[in-house]
C-alpha cells in the first residue's frame, strides 16, 4: 500500500494526518491554559486577573451575571471544552476519518459549537457590560481559528459514511468503525 491510500477518495491530502491535527491540538491546549487561568480567578484561587488594555474590563466581564449564569463559571466550561477538543483531536490513527468517524464527528461538534459560544460571549461583552476582557478575547480567537481547519476531517468522514450507504453497507457499523459482517443483508431496509 502506498501512502496515498490514506487519502480519502478524490482528495489531494489526508485531513487526518498529524500535520493537519497537531496544530489544532496545540491551539486547544493553549486555549485550555488561558481558560483555566480565568476560571481560577473566577473561583477566587487567583486574587487578580491580568488585563493590559481595558482597565477593569476583565474584572467586570469575569464577575458578570452572564459568566455565572450556569452552575460552573463560563471559563471553567470553556476549559472543559478545550480539553474535549484536545482529546478528540489527538486520539485515533492517521486513517481515523475512515476508521473512527464517530470520533471525527464528535471532534467537529466540540470545535464548532464551542467556537459559536465563544463568539456569542464576545458579542455580549461590550453590548451588555460595555467592557472588554483581553484574555477572554484571546480564547475566543483561538476557538474561531480552530473551526475552519477542523471541518475538512469531518467532511471526509461524512463522505465516507455516504459511500458506505451507497454501497449498501451499514452506516451504523461504518460510523463506529466496526468491520463488515460477512452475511449482512444489503442495508436497504435501513433507509
Amino acid at each position: 500500500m502506498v501512502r496515498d491510500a490514506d487519502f480519502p477518495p478524490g482528495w489531494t491530502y489526508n485531513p487526518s494526518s498529524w500535520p493537519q491535527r497537531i496544530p489544532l491540538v496545540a491551539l486547544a491546549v493553549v486555549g485550555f491554559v488561558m481558560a483555566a487561568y480565568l476560571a481560577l480567578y473566577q473561583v477566587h484561587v487567583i486574587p487578580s486577573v491580568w488585563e493590559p488594555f481595558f482597565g477593569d474590563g476583565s474584572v467586570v466581564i469575569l464577575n458578570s451575571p452572564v459568566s455565572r449564569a450556569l452552575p460552573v463559571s463560563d471559563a471553567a466550561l470553556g476549559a472543559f471544552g478545550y480539553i474535549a477538543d484536545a482529546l478528540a483531536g489527538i486520539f485515533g490513527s492517521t486513517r481515523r476519518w475512515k476508521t473512527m468517524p464517530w470520533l471525527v464527528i464528535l471532534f467537529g461538534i466540540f470545535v464548532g459549537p464551542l467556537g459559536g459560544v465563544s463568539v456569542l460571549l464576545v458579542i455580549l461583552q461590550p453590548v451588555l457590560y460595555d467592557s472588554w476582557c483581553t484574555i477572554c478575547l484571546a480564547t475566543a480567537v483561538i476557538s474561531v481559528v480552530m473551526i475552519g481547519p477542523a471541518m475538512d476531517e469531518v467532511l471526509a468522514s461524512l463522505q465516507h459514511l455516504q459511500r458506505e450507504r451507497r454501497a449498501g453497507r451499514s452506516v451504523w457499523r461504518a460510523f463506529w468503525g466496526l468491520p463488515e459482517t460477512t452475511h449482512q443483508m444489503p442495508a436497504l431496509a435501513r433507509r
Partner: protein
Amino acid sequence: MWPHLLCTAIGAWLMAAPQVLSYGEPARTNDHIVGPLLFTFGCTAMFQSVRGVRWVNVPIGAWLVAAPLFLGYRGNAMVNDIVAGFSTIILASIRGEIRQQFGGGWRILLQSRRR
C-alpha cells in the same frame, strides 16, 4: 485566502471602531455585533475546505451598508459602516485560490444517488 483574511480584519476593526472614531449608539452596538460575526465567517472561509462560508459575509456586508438608513445614524459611523460593508461584499465575493481537492466537497453530501 487573502480576501477572507481582509474580511476578518474588517470584523476586528468594527469591534474597535466605535472607540477609535468615537461614535455612539446605535452604530456602536451594531458594530459590536456585526464585527465578531464578520471575523468568525471570514476566518473560517480562509480555509479551503470550507471556503463556501464566505457567502455568509455578503448579506452581513449588505446589512452594514443599509444599517445607517434603518437605524438612523450619520457622520463617522455611517461612512465607516458603508465603506466596511461595500468592502466586505466585494471581498467575500472573491473565491480565492483553492489548490486542494476534497472529493466533491460538501455539495456532494446533498446529492441524491445517481443511477
